[in-house]
């Protein structure tokens, strides 16, 4: 009616569409410019999945790669043993109880404060003030006192000899040195005023959850890094990180869980990007809780071991980027080159084991014994895509055997809480890795710190294993140590309480212009100092 009268020919719709199109074709031009402006020479654009957070080196809330860039420790752990770092040299008293360090001269923190023995002592005092927080390191129980008789001598007194002492002093935290001026009244347990260390880089800017900027420390005492500036972007998502790399927004992705194998596989034969894989750093495993009435039966645990197809996981989930794991620690780990018979993948054997142990198949496809049904929960960290995939795979595999597995994914914090308190049947875990393995992670098995304690609690030989570990730590005889390690590791292997899956590796994917990408003994240290851009 009226509307029809109103309708006249007007080119408005066409005009509108034209405007939209013109607008959208301008967009890319302008977006491209914005990206080009970001790029600067001498700048490496790195990526991490979360913010650097609190980089206080004496606590545990910061990102380790950033702490490694800013701070240094007394000694370094190299491929062939300990290397001097802030300590030029050291001596151990014949009874193994007194450590005397000669502190390197002329080293200063980036705020100008000298890093002498007094500064080192101030750091140790701050760490020891919060001793209870660090007892996961065995040496904390044995450390009696520290002193600095002069500006270049620092001493540590122990109550007993402790062989992994230098290793624990060399790990990222808590024994990294922060400028005493940055402490709050000589204390660090309630936070610090600034993140100031002696390392090759200093932190210049942080925008929470967006990026952090590091610049080379002009007064660094060691070899100065060739890359002067490092911008670390925060990109939480796997896929987005790879896209960012592909579009040239970042130059390097580096880490254990920063890349999924499918994506990595795509770049195997790429000209633009290179891949690097480290040696095994740690073991991806499932911990079985021996206190669970079903898992208390060693035959069930052994059946689960035989029902786990590690090769399929290595190939199917990881495209062979993580080799299958037969034992709790890889043979390349110190003291772990032991002959242990692996639990081979054999479904028939697994079924036989269960059958013989009296677990009979029920009508609903779930085995049971004396009214106890084989129903187990498998807890994984919901932040990890890989763990979820493996969990779903194993759920089906174990299901074929008559074991009903229910999956539960939890956020990192509650996942860790559950692990610590033993509130699990089966749980994904990753051992501490180099350089903590095997001594520190095994020392921790004796206390309720991680899941291992709860899992092992019901083992009949738990006491013997613990005793062996305790003796290892204070033994100064290399041969005796090896004997004890062999004893403890063999028992743990025979108890079948850990299902090793694969050996985790550090993976790097980077622009092929970037050279010198590698790995060090410490799994969290990104060796930026060795990297450089190829001249075009």
């Amino acid at each position, binding site marked *: 009616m009226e509307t029809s009268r109103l*309708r006249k020919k*007007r080119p408005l719709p066409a005009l*509108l569409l034209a405007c939209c199109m013109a607008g959208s074709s301008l*967009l890319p031009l302008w977006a491209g410019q914005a990206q080009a402006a970001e790029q600067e020479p001498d700048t490496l654009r790195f990526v991490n999945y979360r913010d650097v957070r609190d980089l206080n080196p004496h606590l545990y809330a910061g990102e380790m790669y950033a702490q490694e860039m800013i701070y240094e420790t007394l000694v370094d752990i190299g491929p062939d043993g300990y290397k001097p770092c802030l300590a030029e040299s050291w001596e151990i008293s014949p009874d193994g109880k007194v450590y005397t360090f000669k502190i390197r001269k002329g080293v200063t923190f980036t705020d100008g404060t000298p890093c002498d023995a007094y500064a080192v002592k101030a750091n140790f005092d701050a760490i020891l003030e919060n001793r209870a927080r660090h007892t996961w390191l065995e040496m904390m129980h044995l450390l009696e006192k520290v002193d600095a008789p002069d500006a270049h001598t620092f001493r540590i007194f122990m109550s007993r000899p402790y062989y992994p002492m230098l290793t624990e002093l060399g790990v990222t935290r808590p024994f990294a040195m922060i400028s005493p001026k940055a402490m709050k009244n000589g204390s660090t347990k309630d936070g610090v005023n600034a993140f100031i260390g002696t390392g090759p880089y200093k932190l210049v800017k942080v925008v929470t959850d967006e990026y952090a900027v590091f610049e080379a420390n002009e007064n660094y005492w060691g070899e100065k890094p060739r890359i002067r500036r490092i911008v670390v972007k925060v*990109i939480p998502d796997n896929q987005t990180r790879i896209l960012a790399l592909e579009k040239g*927004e970042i130059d390097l992705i580096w880490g254990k869980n920063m890349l999924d194998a499918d994506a990595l596989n795509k770049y195997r034969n790429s000209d633009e990007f290179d891949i690097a894989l480290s040696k095994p750093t740690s073991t991806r495993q499932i911990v079985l809780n021996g206190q669970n009435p079903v898992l208390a039966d060693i035959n069930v645990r052994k059946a689960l071991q035989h029902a786990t197809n590690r090769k399929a996981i290595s190939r199917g989930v990881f495209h062979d980027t993580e080799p299958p794991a037969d034992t709790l620690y890889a043979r390349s780990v110190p003291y772990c080159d032991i002959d242990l018979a692996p639990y081979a993948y054999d479904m028939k054997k697994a079924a036989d084991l269960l059958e013989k142990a009296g677990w009979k198949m029920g009508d609903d496809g779930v085995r049971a014994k004396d009214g106890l049904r084989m129903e187990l929960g498998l807890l994984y960290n919901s932040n990890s895509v890989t763990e979820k995939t493996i969990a779903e795979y194993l759920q089906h595999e174990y299901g074929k055997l008559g074991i009903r597995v229910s999956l539960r994914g939890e956020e990192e*914090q509650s996942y860790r809480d559950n692990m610590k308190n033993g509130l699990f049947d089966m749980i994904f875990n990753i051992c501490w890795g180099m350089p903590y393995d095997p001594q520190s992670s095994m020392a921790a098995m004796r206390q309720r710190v991680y899941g291992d304690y709860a899992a092992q609690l019901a083992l009949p030989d738990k006491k013997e294993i613990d005793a062996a570990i305790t003796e290892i730590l204070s033994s100064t005889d290399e041969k005796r140590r090896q004997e004890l390690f062999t004893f403890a590791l063999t028992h743990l292997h025979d108890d079948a309480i850990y299902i090793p899956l694969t050996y985790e590796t550090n993976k790097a994917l980077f622009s092929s212009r970037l050279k010198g990408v590698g790995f060090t003994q410490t799994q969290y240290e990104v060796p930026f100092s060795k990297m450089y851009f190829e001249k075009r």
Partner: protein
Amino acid sequence: MKNYVIMRLLATVPLLLGISFLCFVFINLIPSDPAEVALRIRQTPVITEELIAQTRAELGLDQPFLVRYFQWLWDCLHFDLGVSYTNPARTVLGEIGRCLPATLELAGLSLVYVIVLSLPIGFLSAVYKDTWFDRIMRGFVFATTAMPVYWVGLLLIWLISIRLDLLPTSGYGSFAHLILPAFTVALSYISTYIRLIRNNMLENMREDYVLYAQARGLKQRAILVRHILKNSLQSCVTAIGMSIPQLIAGTIVVENVFAWPGVGRLCIASIFNRDYPVIQAYVLLVGVLFVFFNLAFDILQYAADPRLRERKA
């Protein structure tokens, strides 16, 4: 007019009380003991029954429920929303304050999209009713209302960012980062408003005053723009204004798809981390925003529309 504003203002008081009460009840329903949680925040290594009782008294948790509610309300009015459970170094207000700007940017640009796209399209659809343009637009409206927002986001990322490589895939930074997520947020609202404006225009076209204007011999264009559009716009602007808090709340899904560091992502992360104070603050924030925008645009509409005033009188 004055009376109406006062009345509306008074009416929001019980509503705000209701919302705050709901938020307070919410945090008091959580299964864990607040005193125990507080101890854990302070990193107390061993938590004993004694310590818990002591902390309860300290935090005033032994007070009656209503006393605690008013205490909490008082703190809220002073912008003291407590401390994050997962990251005790951060206050809830600080967390919200850190993330809110990003969400406001996103919601702001979405609003621009909504206005810039839905007004002309709705207008043209009504004017060119049943032409190819109208049909296409109706198809578009129908399709977008049936599409899950997150899927649209994924498809846009794949098409625009991956295949065509025109815009960044996700994250926060330049204006280019904002374009796709804002469009995704806007999309479902655009279709709602296109339909609203179109129907409004068509209704207005049938009103007597249009016939009268035509009888007076006014030009078609003048009738369309000065009478019909003007009348339709009024109700549409109100509707759009009232949907602003909806827009802010609606960013949750999109922020998670595009890794946009706003309050929506904060909220989802807090749900996974069981960081109740943050969730509580977020719910309170959105509730209050909702009430205020409703109030503001109600009054605006009342001021702009003489018919409403007469009816009340």
